[in-house]
């Protein structure tokens, strides 16, 4: 029994049965395969998270985002006062997270590749782009740079999916993707 010492004192010398050997081999090879798939995807897959990140002071980052927004604001979103920023196609674009908003609203062009910079002004936040469903953790003091290419046009919500206090569920941003003019 599993509750008593092994009957055979030399249990480590018992031979393995065919069923055991087969299953262990299949499971081991499947593990190797799954390991290889992750590496394969880095080489041939389209969806890999960048390793590019910089230490940054929240204040410095905030100033940078504001400067960029000032340069490229095209309009304000309704009567919310939130600027909609349309940076040149293919450039670096900036968004910041703070209690409790994603700022500013970005307007991107479909089919163009952008370098999206993300960082937090205060606590941890979760960048969750919906419904395309891309989820990235956003930390303070770290500026992450993700290269991404929108392949659908329309309006996308940026939900915060890392708990960040009592206003967490009101933290909602937006990315608009327009067809190329």
């Amino acid at each position, binding site marked *: 029994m599993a509750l008593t010492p092994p009957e055979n004192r030399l249990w480590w010398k018992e031979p393995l049965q065919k069923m055991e050997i087969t299953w262990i081999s299949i499971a081991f090879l*499947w593990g190797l395969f799954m390991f290889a798939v992750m590496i394969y995807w880095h080489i041939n897959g389209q969806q890999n998270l960048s390793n590019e990140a910089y230490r940054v002071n929240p204040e410095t980052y905030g100033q940078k985002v504001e400067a960029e927004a000032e340069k490229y604001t095209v309009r304000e979103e309704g009567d919310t006062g939130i600027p909609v920023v349309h940076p040149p196609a293919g450039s670096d674009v900036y968004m910041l997270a703070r209690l409790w908003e994603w700022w500013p609203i970005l307007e991107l062009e479909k089919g163009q590749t952008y370098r999206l910079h993300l960082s937090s002004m205060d606590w941890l936040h979760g960048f969750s782009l919906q*419904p395309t469903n891309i989820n990235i953790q956003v*930390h303070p003091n770290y500026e992450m740079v993700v290269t991404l290419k929108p392949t659908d046009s329309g309006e996308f919500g940026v939900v915060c999916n890392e708990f960040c206090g009592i206003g967490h569920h009101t933290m909602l941003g937006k990315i608009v993707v327009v067809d190329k003019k």
Partner: protein
Amino acid sequence: MASNEQYRVCPETGLKVFFSTEKLIRANAVVAVVFLAIGGLFGLLVALTRWPAVHLLPADMFYLALTAHGADVLLFWIMFFEIAILYFASSVLLNCRIAAPRWAWTGFGLMLIGALMANVAVLQGGSSVMFTSYVPMMAAPHFYLGLILFAVGALIAVFVFFGTLVIAKQENTYQGSVPLVTFGAITAAIIAVYTIASGAIILVPTFLWSLGLINNIDSVMYKVVWWGMGHSSQQVNVAAHVSVWYAIGALTIGAKPLSEKVSRGAFLLYILFLQLASAHHLLVDPGISSEWKVFNTSYALYLAVLGSMIHGMSVPGAIEAAQRRRGFTQGVFGWLRKAPWGNPAFSGMALSVVMFGFIGGISGVVLGTEQINLIMHNTLYVPGHFHGTVVLGTTLAFMAITYLVVPLIFQKELMFPKLAQWQPFLFGIGALGTSLFMMGAGTLGVSRRHWDITFADATLSFDYPPTAFLMMGLNGIFAILATIGGISFIVIVVGSVFFGKRRDEAACKANPVVYQGGGEAVASYGSEHELKLPGTITLVSVFFLAFVLYYFVNWKYLAEVWPLS
């Protein structure tokens, strides 16, 4: 002093049960069940709030209830019960007095004070920081202090366990190697030491920070080290509940491990590789290289997953072999149909094995795949996954063995036996529904830990798909079912322990709960004939097929997402 300590001999198993051990097991088990009741209630409140049509609690109470739910069931219920298991697997199974019972009680006291202190901090409202308590969000100092005291108490208990093993060896209370269940408990205890050390490394500075003595804690570093505790503690659970599976198989139908070598090897893989899983929580975080993520998230070539897959064969295999030996040899699944499904210890264990593998296990590997994590991180898929491991696996297994602990350790007859027969199914199916529907909603992108997915109070607007709302409703309904199962469990256990009929020796002889066929359930190794276990082969084949299909389906989902690099 200690060597002439008092004990009784269990009339069913013939094992020596020392009174000092028995008291410790009872105390830890009772407190565990109390925290299960409290934490479970908070869980119901959370599920009812996330059911959009009900939306029970206001936002602040929701985040408070969610924090309390995590701490009470994920930490306190499970750890107290695991300490009871450690004392059982050392002192009882090895026929040995427990080492330093006073230290064991000190550990128990510290754990209890710590758990109460953390609960008070959460209920006061200033510490709704979730189970993860990520910095720079700050809780009250006594929240961290409570967790630290709890961890110190648990560490003392783990060392009492190790001390008992040493005494058993010195006093030759057993022959040869320790039993497999004890080996599994040793695995859990070794991982627990690592876990608690990680906890101390991160919680002590965080405590000092909350007092204003340290001015900054790096948020990425915090996550790396915190999850060295947070995820490793779940591996303690895995090692513990796998041991419980083997124990229940042995006690209810006399199942014997197919191969001591294979099962112990699988536990060894846990010791060596499970700790790497901290990476699962950092797959979409900045400042960490892909190489580190790929190696760690896969437990180095999926070697710990291999350990679980081995147990996934050897546990049902041991049961099939035992059942065939008992004469249930009809067809491929005759042994399964004729299994003691009316015994809640057996049915709970069987449900735990199957659902842990299919739901918790497969979803865990998929979720922990570096790139696939991009479409799941911090969505409801994450709690969907870990309710598949911690509720369907650990909690169900611990509930199942409680049906043996009550008659054997508390020496009380089980009250409400009819309700007990249904309890594992009520709870298991309820929790299965919550797991599946949370995973479903998560696949649709719904955020975890979120009070209002309609975003009614937000400046901007966004609508999740209507299916997501349907899933959240179904999640609420199944949570109610699980709650009914949970309350049944509490009523049966508390009723039996405090008001049940005492089980004397005659009752044990007349109505034994332990299988009396002894340990000769399986043909021994080295005999000419090969064991034939077609049922187990079919089961693991179905499992493997489901695993492969689901794995590739998720790569397909990922491939449809905007290109990223």
